[in-house]
């Protein structure tokens, strides 16, 4: 296995080495902190580095092992979280200027506590688009997250620092949030695996919200096994999250090696076979070739679903931020503010109609899963754009870049389906992403197919230069 203190170490490899006494959590943490110190000046992934806390946490992991206790399934694994997760002692800035004047969080977010209970070591908070209303990873207050594969390019967002930190080898795991694509987009642009679980699966307690109807949390990593390991540690009911479904933990790490054999896998056609650059569809074709999937399914009314997600997002986001828009509109990132102000004028009947359409759409899409087990689709319509890029050409039309990065992700998160974004490389250029979409509560199917693609060499991570 690789050096557990090195930049390409996996979470599983580190945890095994720490549990076996081959390396200490402290040594792993010190090495990760050194990588952050060396690379963050360029990549701008971390907004807060908590060296003292991390070393203290690592010391406790080592002490548990020395006392003969099990150090946990993520023993000594360094991780970091998008800065909308509460971190005790820090104001939860959520990418904003305004929120950094909040009182420091009194306790860690639920998912941070779960990972640390499993032995993982929090290194700090990560850059993100303001209030998560973003697909680029750019931020007017903290500067842009930069793509480790080409620092002149976007990481994607809004979990931009999460993508950058993992792709650069600073940490093997990061947590992000995904409302309309904010885990899957940076996973695609940075060449990572990212899991957006079923809506209501993981606790959102202690995270700063954006659009309650669509907000999800989940992990990004460099292998399917690492996602499974983290996801199993993240699961569990939490009375502090009223939107969480009453469903116990369903561990899946032992299931993902089952492979894709016997699964009915189809490719999304129509909307998901146009509106993007040819290499996005080449990435899907690569996955299809590796899996032997041949069928095509039509996800009905996907453009309307995307439009409805767009309207609900603007309205719920505006409602959330109404007081701040009244009191401090000049302190927002202009790109966020102007959309939120527009959102305050949306008629309620449009929003309710969008929610009613969502019900219709959900029923039609769920019916597809009577015929297929997993659906493949591109994650983004392009590779990582240049920082500052404002437009994109889609099917010959020049369109605003920001909203259109989510053209393939929004219709899926709109109804909360679990998705694993897998990194696919079709040439020596930048990575692309493929969405592996499963029925509700079947994260195991998405990860089984992702693992089959990884094993076949059709999906995987490459070291950043």
């Amino acid at each position, binding site marked *: 296995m690789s050096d557990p203190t090195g930049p390409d170490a996996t979470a599983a490899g580190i945890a095994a080495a720490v549990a076996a006494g081959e390396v200490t959590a402290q040594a792993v943490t010190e090495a990760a902190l050194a990588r952050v110190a060396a690379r963050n000046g360029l990549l701008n992934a971390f907004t807060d580095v908590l060296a003292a806390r991390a070393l203290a946490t690592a010391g406790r992991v080592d002490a548990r092992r020395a006392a003969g206790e099990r150090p946990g399934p993520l023993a000594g694994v360094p991780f970091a979280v998008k800065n909308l997760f509460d971190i005790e002692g820090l104001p939860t800035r959520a990418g904003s200027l305004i929120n950094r004047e909040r009182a420091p969080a009194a306790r860690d977010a639920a998912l941070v506590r779960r990972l640390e209970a499993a032995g993982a070591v929090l290194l700090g908070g990560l850059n993100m688009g303001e209030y998560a209303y973003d697909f680029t990873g750019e931020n007017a207050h903290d500067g842009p997250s930069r793509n480790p594969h080409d620092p002149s390019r976007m990481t994607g967002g809004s979990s931009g620092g999460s993508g950058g930190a993992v792709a650069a080898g600073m940490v093997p795991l990061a947590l992000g949030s995904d409302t309309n694509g904010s885990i899957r987009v940076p996973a695609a642009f940075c060449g990572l695996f990212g899991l957006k679980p*079923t*809506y*209501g699966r993981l606790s959102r307690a202690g995270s700063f919200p954006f659009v309650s*109807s669509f907000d999800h949390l989940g992990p990004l990593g460099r292998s399917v096994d690492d996602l499974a390991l983290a996801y199993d540690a993240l699961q569990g009911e939490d009375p502090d999250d*009223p*939107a969480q*479904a009453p469903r116990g933990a369903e561990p899946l790490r032992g299931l993902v090696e089952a492979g894709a054999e016997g699964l009915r896998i189809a490719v999304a056609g129509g909307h998901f076979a146009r509106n993007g650059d040819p290499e996005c569809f080449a990435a899907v074709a690569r996955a299809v070739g590796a899996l032997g999937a041949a069928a095509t399914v039509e996800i009905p*009314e996907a*453009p*309307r679903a995307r*439009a*409805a997600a*767009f*309207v609900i997002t*603007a309205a719920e986001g505006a409602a959330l931020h*109404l007081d701040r*828009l*009244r009191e401090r*509109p*000049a302190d927002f990132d*202009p790109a966020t*503010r*102007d*959309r939120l*102000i*527009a*959102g*305050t*004028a*949306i008629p309620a009947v*449009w929003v*309710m*109609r*969008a*929610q*009613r*359409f*969502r*019900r*219709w759409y*959900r029923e039609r899409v769920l019916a597809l899963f009577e015929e297929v087990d997993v659906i493949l689709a591109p994650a983004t319509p392009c590779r990582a754009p240049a920082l500052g890029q404002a437009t994109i050409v889609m099917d010959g039309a020049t369109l*605003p870049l920001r*909203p259109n990065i989510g053209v393939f992700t929004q219709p899926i998160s709109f*109804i*909360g*389906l679990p998705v694993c974004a897998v990194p696919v490389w079709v040439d020596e250029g930048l990575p692309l992403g493929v969405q592996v979409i499963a029925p*509700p*509560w079947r994260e195991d199917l998405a990860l089984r197919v992702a693992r089959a693609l990884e094993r076949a060499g059709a999906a995987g991570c490459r070291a950043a230069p």
Partner: protein
Amino acid sequence: MPADLPPLPDDATLLALLDAAALANGIPVDPAWRPEVLANFRAVANAARAFLPFPLEDESEPAPVFRA
């Protein structure tokens, strides 16, 4: 099928709607922001027109707590 929607109002009408909403909500909008706010609202209005004409049964209720 629902009745056809009227054409999207012109910019002056949309701006009047935005100004009224800002006034009602107590949001101070710098005049320099209005073009971008308008562009964003027009994008929302166009998106809404993608699904507003779509026929739905009266029984298509949104779930109070959405369950995937």
